C-alpha cells in the first residue's frame, strides 16, 4: 500500500503519521506539500494533526481551501480512503467532506492526555482489524475538539453507524461524546484523538494505550489490499 501524508505550514504530527504508516505498511509514505495541485497515485491519504496556518480564522479553515485539499475532496468522492487526525479532522469538516464542526473545548482548556475511547463501529475500513476490541486509548492534544452538529445530522450519524469513536469520560464537551466519524461511503474518517501517536511502546507505554493505534492503520492496509 502506498500512502501519502499532507504537509501544511505548522503541521506537527506529519512525521508521527509517516512513522506509523511506514511501521504498518513497510513503505515510506509520500510527503505531499499543501501547494501541490494533484495528489500522486496513492491508496491512502492522512491529513495530520498540528496547527495549520496558526489556526487563523478557524482551526483548519485556511488549510481546507488549499490546492491539495481540492484534489483530495475530488478523489475522496471517487472512493480514495482518507483519514484526518486532530487538525486533520478539523480540515475535513471545514472542507465539507465530513459534517459538523469542531469548536473550542467546553472547559476552555487545551487538553493533552491519554484518552479512553469506545469503538462504536468496529466494521469500518478503519476499525476492522480491532477484531471486536471495543475500548482503546489514544493520546489527545487539542483546544478545538468540541464536536458540534445540528440534531438532524446527529440523528443521521447515529442511525447510519457513522459515529466510529466515542469518548469515555468526555474531555471537551463534544455532542453525543463524539470523538470520530466517517462519511456516508465509509472511506473518509475524521477523529480528534491521535492513533498515529500510539504505535510505539517506547513513546506510549501500556498504561497510556501502548500500541493501540496500530490496528487502525492495519485495518486500512487490509481493506485496500
Amino acid at each position: 500500500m502506498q500512502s501519502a501524508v499532507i504537509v501544511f505550514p505548522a503541521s506537527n504530527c506529519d512525521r508521527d503519521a509517516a512513522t506509523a504508516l511506514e511501521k504498518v505498511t513497510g513503505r515510506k509514505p509520500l510527503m505531499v506539500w499543501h501547494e501541490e495541485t494533484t495528489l500522486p497515485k496513492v491508496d491512502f491519504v492522512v491529513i495530520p494533526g498540528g496547527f495549520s496556518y496558526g489556526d487563523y480564522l478557524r482551526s483548519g479553515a485556511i488549510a481546507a481551501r488549499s490546492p491539495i485539499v481540492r484534489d483530495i475532496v475530488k478523489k475522496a468522492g471517487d472512493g480514495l480512503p482518507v483519514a484526518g487526525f486532530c487538525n486533520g479532522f478539523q480540515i475535513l469538516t471545514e472542507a465539507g467532506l465530513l459534517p459538523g464542526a469542531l469548536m473550542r473545548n467546553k472547559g476552555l482548556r487545551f487538553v493533552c492526555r491519554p484518552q479512553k475511547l469506545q469503538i462504536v463501529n468496529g466494521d469500518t475500513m478503519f476499525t476492522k482489524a480491532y477484531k471486536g476490541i471495543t475500548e482503546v486509548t489514544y493520546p489527545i492534544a487539542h483546544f478545538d475538539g468540541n464536536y458540534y452538529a445540528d440534531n438532524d445530522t446527529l440523528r443521521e450519524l447515529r442511525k447510519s453507524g457513522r459515529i466510529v469513536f466515542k469518548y469515555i469520560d468526555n474531555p471537551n464537551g463534544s455532542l453525543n461524546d463524539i470523538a470520530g466519524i466517517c462519511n456516508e461511503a465509509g472511506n473518509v474518517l475524521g477523529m480528534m484523538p491521535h492513533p498515529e501517536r500510539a504505535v510505539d511502546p517506547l513513546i506510549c507505554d501500556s498504561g497510556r494505550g501502548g500500541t493501540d493505534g496500530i490496528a487502525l492503520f492495519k485495518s486500512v492496509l487490509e481493506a485496500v489490499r
Partner: protein
Amino acid sequence: MKAIIHIGLKPGVLDPQGRTIARSLAHMGFEGVTKARQGKTIELDLSSDNAETAKLEVEKMCKQLLANTVIEDYQIEIVE
C-alpha cells in the same frame, strides 16, 4: 469602500468564551449583564464602487471562507 463583517455563533450554539466573559464581568461588579456572546469582525477594503454588487461578492466570501455556516451567522455592512 469597505465591508465590515460581523461573525458570531448561531443562537443555540454553546459559547463557553461568551459565558466566561459574562461571569468575569459579574465578578467585577457589573451586575446588569445577563448574557455575553463573543464573535469577530473582519474589515475588507474593496476596490468596487458599486455597493450592491460588492455586497453580493462579500456574501460569497462569507459562505465560502469567512464564516462556517454550520455554527456561525454573519452580517455584512458596506460603508463608503
